[in-house]
């Protein structure tokens, strides 16, 4: 991790010094443990604030749209695919962005650590040997990093950046035995009413803060459908039909575009795994059209195009 941080600062300083870019987008140390907020750096002096950890869960592609001038961004595998997505959708011009790829070892799930430790956490320290030390209230616990990984990182098969100008480290190897859709398959195996109950329970604690929407790089509509008043597509309260409608539509808007970066889950204050919605769409796109979001900017996204050979099994 330390080598990553040094390399990140070195690259950022060089790009700013040579005036290749006007701004570098990366992560900084947060004031709360286990949260690394994004930051933009414009001067060489501020480069020392840039960092890297297993809590860099947010997708930095989200901050690339509507920026002025040339910008450099540090991108994990999923962030990188979201940038490719932005390029394909015309939100970002390739020549305006310098992509610094960060081969990813997976990020840790804050909510898992909180529930395992059970008390207020003051500090989380990672060692290079894969152990994680959690401290709080005079107590100290050690965990294995592999046990604390986010679920989307566990099933991730795109850990290396797909498009980059330079890299901060060697490309990582992806295990061959990943069952990437195991969560969806579990839900698919349930009956109709059981599935409904599963999703009812899933969103029961949702407070409609829209953090999932705001942290999502694919959600960039000037006015979101939930904020629109004329017509008002969906009620604003916490009644189940409204909350469910929000989640169904939010997920559907990401169909064929979601890279399963997990920013929505990581930013959720209630720890809801709304990937249960989006992962199904990702699986469908792969099964039906052999499409994976953000792999290339040269092809049109799955829901934007059609072929006469497209499956039509659901049409009567």
């Amino acid at each position, binding site marked *: 991790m330390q080598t990553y941080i040094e390399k990140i600062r070195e690259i950022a300083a060089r790009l700013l010094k040579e005036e290749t870019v006007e701004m570098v987008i990366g992560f900084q140390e947060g004031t709360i443990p286990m949260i690394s907020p994004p930051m933009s750096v414009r001067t060489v002096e501020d480069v020392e604030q840039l960092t890297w950890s297993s809590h860099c869960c947010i997708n930095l592609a989200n901050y690339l749209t509507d920026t002025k001038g040339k910008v450099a961004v540090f991108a994990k595998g999923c962030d990188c695919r979201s940038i490719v997505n932005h390029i394909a959708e015309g939100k970002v011009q390739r020549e305006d962005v310098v992509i610094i790829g960060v081969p990813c070892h997976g990020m840790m799930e804050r909510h898992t650590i909180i529930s395992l430790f059970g008390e207020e956490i003051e500090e989380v320290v990672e060692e290079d040997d894969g152990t994680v030390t959690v401290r709080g209230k005079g107590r100290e616990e050690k965990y294995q990093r592999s046990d604390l990984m986010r679920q989307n990182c566990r099933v991730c098969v795109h850990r290396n950046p797909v498009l980059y100008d330079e890299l901060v480290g060697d490309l990582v190897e992806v295990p061959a035995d990943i069952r990437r859709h195991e969560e969806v398959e579990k839900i698919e195996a349930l009956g109709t*009413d059981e*599935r*409904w109950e599963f999703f009812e329970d899933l969103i029961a604690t949702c407070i409609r803060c829209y953090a999932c929407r705001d942290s999502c790089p694919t959600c960039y509509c000037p006015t979101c459908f939930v904020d629109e008043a004329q017509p008002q597509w969906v009620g604003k309260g916490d009644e189940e039909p*409204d909350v469910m409608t929000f989640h169904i539509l939010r997920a559907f808007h990401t*169909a064929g575009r979601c890279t399963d970066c997990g920013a929505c889950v990581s930013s959720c204050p209630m720890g809801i795994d709304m990937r249960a919605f989006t992962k199904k769409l990702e699986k469908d796109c792969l099964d039906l059209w052999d499409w994976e979001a953000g792999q290339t900017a040269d092809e049109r996204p799955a829901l934007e195009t059609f072929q006469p050979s497209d499956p039509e099994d659901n049409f*009567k």
Partner: protein
Amino acid sequence: MLTHIGIEPERLQFSWISSAESTKFIDVVTEVTEAVRKVGPNTKLVKNMVREP
């Protein structure tokens, strides 16, 4: 997506009918109505629903 989250598949039907295919339209509407009648009134995603005790 809707069937995945537990909406009955009978309620979700897609068809492509030209404005000239009036008989197909009748057939499809009849089929859909029958299928939906079989599964009964919808209880999911319904607001202010009076739940039977």
